[in-house]
């Protein structure tokens, strides 16, 4: 089973055809509210965004068709190009670090021992803080004015003088955002990975151990392959989330210093709300959505073939 695989058929084979058709209608009826909300508040606005991307769309007044100008204009937008690179870099960094950390935490708390419950709680609690709140929290935490980080580092002699983490240099700005994301999301991903870990029957491990497998061999040959669907789910969520990153940069680094942490969605925001060019903002969004759909479809295809 993969993330996007169709659900198991639950209709009994013995069900007579009439009842089956009835049951279909009943199923559709239960899905109707979902279809309504998704259709009304997602498909319709999405259609409007696509429609916008084909037009010169002034804030007030009548839009005029200018396709494919909005899309053609993207090619020579330098800020957009640097944002694409940055977003890809960020996605790789965050996905790798977040995955390693979450998996490590999951392994750490997978067996019931004394204190494990407390550890799980501690790792998961940051997920209870809204992401915008968490970004504001880190804004204070990392600030020179009120934050403890600089003072702690100074007192142990690691730091001398003034440092601005969020806007001092490209690396510390990226680092600030990455640490924030690790802190906020590691616990959530740990919990998902934990469900995958615990779904592996214990006797499989036992058999491997009887065969004389080392711990590393067990991890490579049993844990990872059996966890593949869960790992796929977690990676998909991480990559999609990173490609759409916005809040952490908007609040923490403002895309700086020198545009070094300007993400794709920040460029969309700038096109729409600062340049007031809704058409080209919509075009970037549609392009980004297209990339994400293709990416997820490929991942789905690869995983299906393997399993």
């Amino acid at each position, binding site marked *: 089973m993969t993330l996007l695989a169709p659900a198991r058929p639950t209709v009994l084979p013995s069900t007579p055809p009439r009842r089956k058709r009835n049951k279909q209608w009943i199923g559709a009826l239960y899905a109707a509210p979902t279809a309504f909300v998704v259709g009304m508040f997602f498909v319709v606005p999405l259609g409007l965004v696509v429609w916008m991307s084909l037009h010169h769309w002034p804030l*007030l007044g009548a839009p005029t068709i200018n396709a494919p100008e909005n899309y053609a204009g993207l090619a020579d937008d330098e800020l957009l190009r640097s944002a694409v690179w940055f977003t890809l870099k960020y996605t790789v960094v965050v996905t790798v670090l977040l995955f390693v950390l979450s998996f490590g935490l999951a392994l750490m708390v997978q067996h019931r021992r004394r204190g494990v419950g407390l550890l799980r709680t501690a790792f998961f609690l940051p997920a209870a803080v809204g992401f915008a709140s968490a970004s504001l929290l880190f804004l204070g935490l990392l600030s020179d004015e009120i934050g403890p980080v600089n003072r702690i580092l100074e007192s142990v002699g690691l730091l001398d003088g003034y440092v601005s983490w969020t806007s001092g240099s490209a690396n510390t700005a990226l680092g600030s955002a990455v640490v924030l994301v690790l802190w906020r999301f590691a616990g959530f991903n740990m919990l998902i990975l934990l469900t995958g870990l615990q779904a592996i029957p214990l006797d499989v491990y036992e058999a491997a151990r009887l065969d004389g497998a080392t711990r590393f061999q067990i991890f490579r040959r049993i844990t990872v392959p059996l966890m593949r669907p869960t790992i796929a789910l977690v990676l998909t969520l991480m990559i999609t989330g990173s490609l759409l990153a916005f809040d952490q940069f908007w609040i923490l680094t403002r895309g700086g210093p020198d545009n070094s942490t300007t993400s794709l969605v920040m460029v969309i925001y700038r096109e729409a709300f600062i340049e007031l060019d809704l058409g080209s903002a919509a075009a970037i969004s549609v392009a980004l959505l297209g990339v994400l759909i293709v990416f997820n479809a490929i991942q789905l295809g690869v995983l299906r073939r393997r399993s």
Partner: protein
Amino acid sequence: MKRLLSGTVAATLLLALAACGDDKAASGEPATADSGAKLTLWTRAATESVSKAYAAAYNATHKNQVEVTAYPNEEYPAKLASAAGAKALPDLFASDVVFAPQYASQGLWLDITDKFNALPMKDKVAPAHVRNGTWKGKNYAVPHTIDMSVMLYNKDLFTKAGLDPEKPPTSLTEFAAAARAVDKLGGDINGTYFGGNCGGCNVFTLWPSVWAAGGDVMNAEGTASTIDSKEMADVFALYRKLYDEGVAAPASKDEAGPTWLGALQSGKIGIAPAPSAWLGIIEEKATFKVGIAPISGINGGESTFVGGDSIGIGATSKNAAQAWDFLAWTLGDEAQVEVVAKGKGVPTRTDLASNKYSSADPRIVAINNLMGKGKTPYAKNFNATYNDPQSPWNTAYRGALFGDAQKSLGDGATALTASLKK
């Protein structure tokens, strides 16, 4: 809490009254300018207190009732743009004066040319502000608040450093000398401070020095950048040197705006360019005496950036006549003296620079008089070109202050011109 509650009750009662007024207007009585309409006014958080003071004074004497909604500064343009896109603008909305040409050109405000020209005091209304509310010869906005850039200095530190606290520098060169003298006091005292990662701050504090030296940063239409001029290069070179020498606080390089005021309030900075409105805020808490001086050019002269907010009538408003009644009232003597001047603000009228409240403090008269010498830069695409953190201006001045100065200003002028022409 009690005040809050009684305020809410009063507001509710007024709303109820306003609703009655509306009914009457609808039932055939001629719609007058003060018909008891409920007017919505949007503003950014930084301007909220002034907008609310205007509204409270107006509401107390009028049937119309103005209700102010404030949005976070950073997200305010997004709010306006999405409201305009949904054709749901408020009756009145204010904006940073430098963004006014953009909103005027997009038609977000109603044309008020005839109404404005009929005002008896129209020639006395801050001319630079009025110009920014103009697009293709039509007026769309009037001044709402005024904030100017000045030099603020710590008189106590001046005395300690052997400088005369009553004789502030009269040129940018003297300013640098004073900053160096204060910086020599040592410890955690620094000579000066600036927003080295804040486009809006640099526009506000550095450009007046260019103007005072007779130069400019753009052509008059706001379509071509001239930051590769000698005047601009001189100003950057001076600040760059102060930073390199450690006279400017090290935090200046990363200052994106949020901790700028805090730095000046700390009492550890000798002299720095800043918004004039901070005079009152710093004095309120400070244990030191604050002096104020005009921003000057390298060899003298003085100028200022006449900033603040403009306000106009939302293009989709159904209460245009009533909204204008409010705007016209805010420009009148009563509002300017009893609301703005009383609240230690700068009147938006040149003829009210000295009034019964400002005469108590000669420094305030000095600030008010600066308005005639200053400028408000005009450019349609100002926000995206200068204020936004992703703007080409940000790249240019960061390079000029901390990187390859020569190249940054040359490349910067090209990039800025491209952005201005959009």
